[in-house]
């Protein structure tokens, strides 16, 4: 599903933030990405969700070598990825409902087809009564849950989440993780960057840790 070979990344003329990163995410796997603040977690995720090209090395996504893939094919690849951004990136002028529905609209689905799905999902993340609210009127945790709902609503092949439980209490955190696990059970490959030890301990999942820009395998999937 995702393959990195000797990937290096630097911003402009700065130091290398990622160095010789090599790993594989198997289809249907569930993985945590950990590391201290500033270790390069967001940077690594941005390479996977095609926000930026690597400075060196090879990134393969859905069996496609991105360095030789035509730009015109990128949108179709991007639509197969659901992303929860660390800073949410909700569209401020759209309601919670419309934000969540956006990936479905981009995929060409009609409102009467997806209306019920979107409403159910919003209820599931505990926002059933705030569907028409604009992001600015919602708390950080509520916005985060909308961002998560938006990332999963189109059942992506690959889900990338950057600190998805950073702004919610433990109970809602557990609920969100169950959502990811459920999606994973249905076939989505999941990669979550987090600081939240409790979250990691509660799951039988692989953990990759970034230390000084290098990747360290902490543990493989637990039995």
């Amino acid at each position, binding site marked *: 599903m995702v393959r990195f070979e000797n990937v290096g990344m630097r911003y402009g003329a700065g130091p290398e933030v990622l160095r010789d990163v090599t790993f594989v995410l198997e289809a249907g796997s569930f993985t945590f990405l950990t590391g201290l603040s500033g270790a390069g977690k967001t940077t690594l995720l941005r390479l996977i969700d095609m926000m930026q090209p690597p400075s060196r090395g090879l990134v393969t996504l859905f069996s496609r070598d991105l360095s030789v893939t035509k730009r015109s094919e990128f949108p179709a690849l991007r639509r197969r990825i659901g992303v929860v951004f660390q800073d949410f990136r909700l569209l401020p*002028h759209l309601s919670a409902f419309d934000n969540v529905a956006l990936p479905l609209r981009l995929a060409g689905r009609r409102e009467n087809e997806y209306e019920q799905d979107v409403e159910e999902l919003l209820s599931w993340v505990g926002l059933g009564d705030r569907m028409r609210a604009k992001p600015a009127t919602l708390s950080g945790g509520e916005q985060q849950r909308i961002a998560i709902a938006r990332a999963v609503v189109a059942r992506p092949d690959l889900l990338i989440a950057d600190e998805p439980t950073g702004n919610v209490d433990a109970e809602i955190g557990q609920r969100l993780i169950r959502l990811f696990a459920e999606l994973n059970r249905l076939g989505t490959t999941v990669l979550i960057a987090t600081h939240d030890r409790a979250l990691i301990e509660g799951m039988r999942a692989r953990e990759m840790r970034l230390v000084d820009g290098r990747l360290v395998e902490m543990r493989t999937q637990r039995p």
Partner: protein
Amino acid sequence: MNLGRNANAILPREKGAAPLDIVIAIMAFLAALALGASLIAERTALGWRAGLSDRLTVQIVPPAQDAPGAGLDRETDAALAVLRATPGIAHAAPLSQDQTLALVQPWIGSDALVAELPLPRLIDATITPGAQVDLAALTHELKKAAPDSLVDDHARWISRLKALAEAITWSAYGILLLIAIATAATVAFATRAGLEAYHEIVALLHQMGAQSRFIARAFERHYFVSTLGASLVGAALAALFFASVGGLEFAGVEAVPFLPPLGLRLAEMPWLLLVPAVSGIIALATARISVLAALRQIY
């Protein structure tokens, strides 16, 4: 990908007119004024030429020592005969005493005294359209038949008017061009400035896998509609201006004598629609080009 109304829902619907919409409306108003003025100048210049260039006036001037009377009448008749015998002259007729008086009345009044003034006799002649009349020969013939005759083919008057009309027309076109450029620049600038504010949205939609075409179309439509609206308001105000000036003239309020009428005819009004149409297309093209260029910058 499903476009249609989905594309519209992606951009915020603006409430009321943005400051840039007001600037666009004002520029469109000025552009429509300049366009209307060019149309009027062009039409007026054509009218002047058509009205004068095929005419000829022959004056029989009373000799200073003589009292007006029989001599003048005889010379007038002789001049008329010469004119009517000249090929290329379609029509020749003397102006009556009353008509002549009416001509001079604005300058010297209509006093009883005027009736005793030695007025020249005037003959108005029309040249067959397209015919070439040898003026030198005609003048010579007329001098022989009527020694006190003077031929005026308005040539000097016409050439001056022509020059004036051309100067006015070209100035109007020049101003129109300048304002058109300024309007185009304003529209392009407004569109680009608006897009800056939406950079986040563009980047997000791009990241979510929206096709560049789809994103560009949303913006195109957005700016086409808002620019069209703003410039329609400007052009409509200009049309209203021309209509009300025309209305004043129609109601008998004279424009300054000798200046062309300022009213735009109803049939000429649709030309003003060019202003919003062109503005809308510029906004559309600018939005498209800017969005696609911005998207190429992103990975």
